[in-house]
């Protein structure tokens, strides 16, 4: 009988308890003695051929018979009331099939009531005003220009500090501070902690607003068949989109189907239901034809989310030997116009180091700018930059090696819960990383800057290149959680199909799930297919975010494969008339000492006509007595050109601990990708909003600078690769977000080391470097 229990889960720095139904028998993670054929092997992506041939159909590529296109009219003002809207001229344009606005669309509450699908108040430049549905995209675009909107401009505020002032205009009716109060965490006695300190270092750090710029923009295709709605959506959470659509449109769940086959990046920005999806559904309803709405690059950069800017006042107290006595963070986060899921900027301050007295206070503030969304390790990238920069300053003041200082304050338990970590390989990551990097040699000189300058040029020559090194640490969840379900079907021909409702957002989920099933079943991986990305498959799996897909869905797949294997053995023993215990399955063949030669599974199952084996698996609850986290350390070497201000990252060494590695090949792509995104964030990515108009001036890829092929440093990395037997039945934890967390901090520390001056604000642009150098 299924048992309902409570389990604790951590998702992107937020901890909560939830009920979970436990069923079936548990499995323990493979031990070191178990020979593994697929787990831990470099398996190329099983869907690689589709992706390299152009055959993979992304949402952007879906074309249905009779399909119309939708284009959204967006607010040119940061804050305004729509006095009137006249769509008649647009409607008369040949080829226009419908124009939707607040005048004719249902008033649907969005983002927990902070806005409506079409609101009469627009709260940022880019807010949705109307949508034209037309035969061709070009016609829809033409029609947008024919819509006449009269706005009453309202006072606006763009800066979060200004927005907190009492005289600031209200972005949301309830005020500009999310929930009306800061989010506070406290442990120990902060005052006592600071009074025990021999040294207190206090600084203010600023991080920029970064844009995801997924290459496939956000968008959906909606199709009605009778009263049933099918939506193709570029989403990280098909079941979340289904639930949202059903609720907003008043549909039962079984009448809504959401499909996501391939997707061109999400990075957290596609975690939930978008207005464009609902508008496409309404447009399809109104016209009786399928409707496609894909945002263009500019809309993507206005309305599809961002990593919010932060201001972090950070104060640390330490004894002379480096022992931390107190840590205080006051963070202000610029949420933009709407926010239902604030990033946890204080996470690293609360968790990374052993410190008895800690207080974090976060003000998430509404402004008249584009709304934030999750962005790969939300909050932790920002928080780690500040904390790890300040740790370096502290080390400098105390004349302690930065790595030594971190080891001095190593936390063996999770101080937010008092639980020991299930496994923690951070010490090993530090040690292996330092060795790979050559940290000791590079930092041993009493005057590291001078020492490194020598490496920049020949003796006597005026050095125009400064070299520097720095490092930073990472903590993140990545534990995975229930509920997640899978079935494994064994077909009569000896092939098997894994079915689950997760989605592969480019991380290699499909391949990893095939490996897990092949391993457990004893089948060749070529005989496994994986069906995901469709709510109609019926098996819930959580959103692909929080580095939790493998650790959530993988264990369910293994359990399902295990159950299927048990059934197969039951059946085979009877068909072959051999003792069940004597049977083994390897490489898709059944063998037994009682058999002359191995028998193909196909030969057994085909005797049973179309009998089909179906194994079920459900993700087990998380352990109650331990904290399950991921860890890592990165080391950076940079050169700074003192004449141009250009920072070149020469190399990054990374060592991470995410438990067992299932596929070193796809994992290495995650690590490199995270580091490269972190590099862009450290050096050049930044949304720029015009102070006078609220307009984003670089809402395109020309002026919003992403890393290119020419910016890539040498990347060396290793995994601790030790199975976490308490985490789940795979021993694996997530790796999607960990690699981006420490990169900017490590680069900033290396730049500070090179310059001998610290810059407290990201990104480290040439302008800032040159300004800093003038102060020398």
């Amino acid at each position, binding site marked *: 009988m299924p048992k309902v229990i409570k389990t604790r889960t951590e998702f992107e720095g937020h901890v909560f308890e939830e009920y979970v139904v436990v069923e079936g028998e548990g499995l323990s993670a493979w031990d070191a003695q178990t020979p593994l054929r697929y787990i831990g092997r470099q398996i190329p992506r099983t869907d690689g051929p589709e992706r390299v*041939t*152009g055959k993979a159909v992304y949402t952007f590529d879906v074309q249905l018979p009779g399909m119309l296109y939708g284009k959204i009219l967006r607010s040119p003002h940061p804050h305004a009331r729509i006095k009137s809207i006249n769509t008649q001229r647009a409607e008369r344009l040949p080829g226009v099939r419908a124009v939707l606005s607040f005048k004719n669309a249902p008033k649907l509450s969005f983002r927990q009531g902070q806005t409506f699908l079409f609101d009469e108040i627009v709260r940022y430049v880019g807010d949705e005003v109307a949508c034209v549905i037309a035969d061709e995209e070009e016609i829809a675009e033409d029609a947008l220009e024919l819509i006449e909107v009269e706005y009453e401009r309202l006072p606006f505020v763009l800066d979060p500090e200004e927005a907190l002032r009492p005289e600031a205009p209200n972005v949301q009716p309830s005020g500009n501070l999310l929930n009306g109060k800061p989010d506070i965490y406290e442990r120990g006695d902060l005052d006592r902690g600071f009074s025990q300190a021999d040294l207190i270092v206090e600084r203010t750090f600023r991080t920029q607003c970064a844009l995801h710029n997924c290459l496939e923009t956000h968008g959906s295709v909606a199709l009605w068949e009778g009263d049933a709605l099918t939506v193709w959506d570029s989403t990280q959470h098909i079941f979340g989109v289904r639930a949202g659509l059903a609720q907003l449109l008043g549909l039962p769940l079984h009448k809504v189907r959401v499909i996501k086959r391939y997707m061109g*990046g999400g990075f957290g920005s596609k975690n939930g239901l978008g207005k464009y999806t609902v508008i496409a559904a309404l447009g399809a309803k109104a016209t009786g034809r399928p409707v496609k709405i894909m945002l263009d690059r500019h809309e993507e950069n206005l309305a599809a989310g961002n990593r919010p800017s932060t201001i972090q006042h950070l104060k640390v107290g330490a004894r002379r030997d480096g022992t931390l006595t107190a840590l205080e963070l006051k963070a202000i986060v610029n949420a933009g116009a709407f926010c239902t899921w604030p990033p946890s900027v204080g996470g690293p301050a609360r968790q990374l180091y052993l410190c008895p007295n800690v207080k974090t206070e976060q003000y998430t503030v509404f402004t008249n700018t584009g709304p934030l969304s999750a962005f790969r390790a939300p909050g932790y990238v920002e928080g780690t930059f500040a904390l790890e920069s300040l740790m370096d300053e502290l080390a400098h003041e105390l004349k302690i090696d930065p790595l030594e200082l971190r080891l001095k304050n190593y936390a063996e338990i999770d101080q937010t819960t008092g639980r020991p970590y299930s496994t923690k390989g951070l010490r090993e990551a530090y040690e292996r990383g330092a060795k790979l990097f050559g940290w000791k040699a590079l930092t041993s000189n009493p005057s590291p800057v001078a020492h490194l300058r020598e490496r920049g040029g020949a003796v006597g020559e005026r050095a125009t290149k400064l070299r520097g090194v720095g490092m930073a640490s990472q903590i993140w969840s990545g534990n995975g959680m229930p509920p997640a379900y899978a079935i494994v079907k064994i077909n009569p021909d000896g092939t098997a199909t894994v079915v689950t409702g997760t989605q592969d957002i480019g991380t290699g989920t499909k391949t990893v799930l095939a490996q897990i099933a092949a391993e457990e079943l004893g089948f060749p991986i070529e005989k496994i297919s994986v069906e995901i990305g469709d709510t109609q498959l019926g098996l819930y799996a959580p959103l692909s975010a929080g580095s939790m897909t493998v650790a959530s869905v993988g264990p369910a797949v293994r359990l399902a494969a295990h159950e299927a294997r048990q059934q197969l053995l039951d059946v085979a023993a009877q068909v072959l008339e051999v003792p069940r215990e004597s049977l083994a399955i390897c490489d898709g063949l059944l063998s037994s000492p009682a058999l002359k030669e191995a028998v193909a599974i196909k030969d057994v199952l085909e005797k049973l006509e179309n009998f089909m084996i179906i194994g079920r698996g459900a993700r087990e609850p998380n352990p109650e007595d331990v904290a399950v986290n991921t860890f890592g350390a990165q080391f950076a070497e940079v050169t700074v050109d003192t004449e141009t201000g250009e920072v070149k990252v020469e190399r990054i060494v990374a060592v991470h601990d995410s438990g067992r590695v299932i596929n070193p090949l796809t994992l290495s792509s995650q690590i490199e990708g995270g580091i490269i995104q972190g590099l862009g964030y450290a050096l050049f990515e930044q949304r720029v909003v015009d102070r006078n108009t609220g307009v984003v001036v670089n809402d395109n890829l020309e002026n919003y600078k992403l890393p290119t092929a020419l910016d890539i440093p040498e990347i060396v990395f290793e995994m601790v690769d030790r199975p976490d037997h308490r985490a789940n039945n795979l021993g694996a934890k997530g790796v999607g977000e960990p690699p981006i967390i420490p990169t900017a901090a490590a680069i900033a520390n290396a730049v500070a080391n090179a310059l001998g001056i610290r810059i407290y604000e990201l990104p480290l642009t040439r302008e800032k470097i040159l300004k800093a150098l003038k102060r020398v």
Partner: protein
Amino acid sequence: MATKAVRPKKRKIAVRGPGKTPIKLIVNGETHELLVEPRRTLLDALRKDLGLTGTKRACDEGTCGACTVLLDGKPIYACMALALECEGRSIETVEGLARNGKLHPIQAAFIEEDALQCGFCTPGQIMSVKALLDENPNPTLEDVKRAVSGNLCRCGAYPKIFKAALRAAELLRSGS
């Protein structure tokens, strides 16, 4: 920071339109007759009129390289060319690389090296590498970096794209 600006050379073309006009496009060696508005880009003609959605639209303004195709053997951004300008010229897209169900060595190398994550920039990357290797069968790492410097990859597959390009060059040289 795209550094490689690639645009087709402007050629004199007869005034056509307004409204849809018939054109012939030669794509992957096959001639297609279609009816498009003069303002239709080569990218949209490939994707919408010919159903060749392997060439991706990510910015539609010549800043990302996802729509890279070969026009008379040279890599161009298909979003920056009008379909009309390409009439009668040889257009090569990612769909034309695999022959008789066998992957092109560049495609095989991309899979083996895992030179892709979400895969959305991949067709463009592959076409840029194809243009490079057609011209220079023995490229250096720097050559490869320059060749794909106009192709953004948000997932950060660059290190593996470099490896895949060099591996593909090797495969092609050895004739496999």
